[in-house]
């Protein structure tokens, strides 16, 4: 009887575990094996053509300029994009929480709207807004006497444009998290600071920022991990160009795997990216802990 009951209780978690096991855990483990083989178009036709090659895919990869290019592009995106996104989130959250602000619910919804939109659709919109000849952005630049910029066609500007786009699309999510954290800062701290004659900026630096430090760390780590997975933006906006200036690591994996069918090499790319994300987020945590101690 008791045995039967235990089985029923376990049955609640089984369906979800089977789905996750079959379509997530098993593929991840197989992926590790796959990255040690030369799985390509021939192996796709017949598994007889499959050979175990050890770490050859990884060694090959780190010898290819395109891998380092993709890694550099992704790092550029993360290093500039994460602080920009989080800075915008924090700024918007502080403005929204200000007792002086009007129409807060409306403003919050407007600021948050880009987060729920479909990435592919808004990437298409941006492509036209940043069009060299017909885009409104260049139109605005020219109206204030600046030269138009070849936003997505110039290899120096393509990644900054994608960074701007990602910041616009994503800042609202962290903004909500910062707003909740701001609500938890005790108001008497500000009261005391005001009595001591601290100006707005001093209050922000010495009360708000320290109080938000744990939230900023969490948000920073999650955003960094997410930004390393850059893919759809370059796929839709630039197709990796111009001059491979927007090829990201994940874009490289997609091209290797599903365009050239080098699934073994592509799997190695995926695992290198995974390792890198773990390394960087761990590093961030370590640095933050040292700062706190």
């Amino acid at each position, binding site marked *: 009887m008791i045995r039967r*009951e235990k089985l*029923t*209780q*376990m049955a*609640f*978690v089984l*369906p*979800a*575990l089977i*789905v*996750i096991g079959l*379509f*997530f855990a*098993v*593929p*991840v483990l*197989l992926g590790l094996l*796959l990255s040690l083989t030369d799985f390509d178009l021939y192996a796709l036709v017949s598994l007889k053509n499959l050979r175990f090659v050890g770490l050859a895919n990884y060694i090959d990869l780190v010898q290819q300029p395109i891998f380092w290019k993709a890694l550099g592009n992704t790092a550029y995106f993360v290093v500039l994009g994460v602080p920009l996104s989080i800075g915008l989130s924090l700024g918007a959250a502080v403005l929204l929480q*200000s007792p*002086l*602000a009007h129409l807060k619910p409306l*403003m919050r919804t*407007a*600021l948050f*709207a*880009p*987060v*729920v*939109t*479909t*990435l*592919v*659709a808004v990437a*298409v919109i941006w*492509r*036209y*807004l940043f069009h060299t000849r*017909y885009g409104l952005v260049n*139109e605005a630049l020219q109206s204030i006497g600046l030269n138009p910029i070849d936003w997505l066609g110039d290899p120096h500007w393509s990644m900054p444009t994608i960074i701007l786009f990602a910041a*616009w699309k994503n800042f609202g999510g962290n903004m909500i*998290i910062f707003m*909740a954290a701001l609500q938890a800062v005790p108001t008497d701290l500000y009261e005391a600071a005001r009595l001591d004659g601290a100006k*707005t900026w001093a209050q922000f630096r010495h009360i708000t920022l320290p109080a938000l430090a744990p939230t900023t760390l969490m*948000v920073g780590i999650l955003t960094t*991990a*997410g930004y390393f*997975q850059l*893919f*759809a933006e370059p*796929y839709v906006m630039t*197709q990796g160009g111009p001059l491979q200036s927007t090829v990201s690591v*994940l874009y490289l*994996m*997609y091209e290797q795997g599903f365009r050239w069918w080098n699934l073994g090499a592509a799997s190695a790319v*995926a*695992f290198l*990216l*995974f390792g890198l*994300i*773990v390394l960087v987020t761990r590093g961030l945590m370590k640095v933050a802990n040292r700062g706190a101690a």
Partner: protein
Amino acid sequence: MKTLKLKPVLVNAALAGAALLAIFPLLWMLSVSFMHNGEASNYPPPLLPSAPSLDRYRELLKSGGFGRAFLVSLSLATISTLVSTLLNALAGYGFAKLRFRGRDTLFALLLGALVIPGQVGMLPLFLMLKQMGLVNTWAGVLVPSMASIFGIFLVRQYAMGLPGELIEAARIDGAGEWRIFQAIVLPLLTPVLVTLGVLSFLGSWNDFMWPLIVLTDGNLYTLPVALAALSREHVQDVELMMAGAVITVLPVLALFLALQRYYMQGLLMGGVKQ
């Protein structure tokens, strides 16, 4: 004295400016979708259509296959939401309130796996689905989204707070586990399940990389994949593309506006991650 009066103006101006910048691309998309062919490429580029028309939408629905893609996206997102919400609810409740061997170890394993990005398993999953004959089918798009670790985690957090006495009392009265789940637990879980449902619907609707990989036949495309394909073919047709973007974005935006409160809650419970 002067700065006191200036500050409210500055705060509100900055806020209004930021809000306008945030939604301007969406307003522009809507406006251009009503323009006639080539109008947006005039010089200087117009902000509003001279003679608003629905022709771009008609064109998309008739020849672009967007009506079909819309139905595909709607069906897949609905099925994925229903199935994943049910499976995550069962598992989340199980991990929170039921006792079975290895429960805590299993849950710790799941939490640990949360750090693995989904793309790591994509290539082998594609090969597995190919073996099962699910490549280039809607089922292939659906299967990986039928349960999520984050969803289980969300439900578990919420279910931990449910009153255990109620469940215990029902058990003493002789109610079976399934009956207890249906009659007592499910109604109590409703708020978190709505949150989870909104998150999965938006996640499924907006998903791009996986359907792009699984679907090769244009007739099976979801909206984002269809839109991306269209944007590669019809780069010059700004107005047509904007109509496509409106069809893609509007449903999720409307759903978000209607259930905003639940969505924000999900966000606060641990960041949006599928």
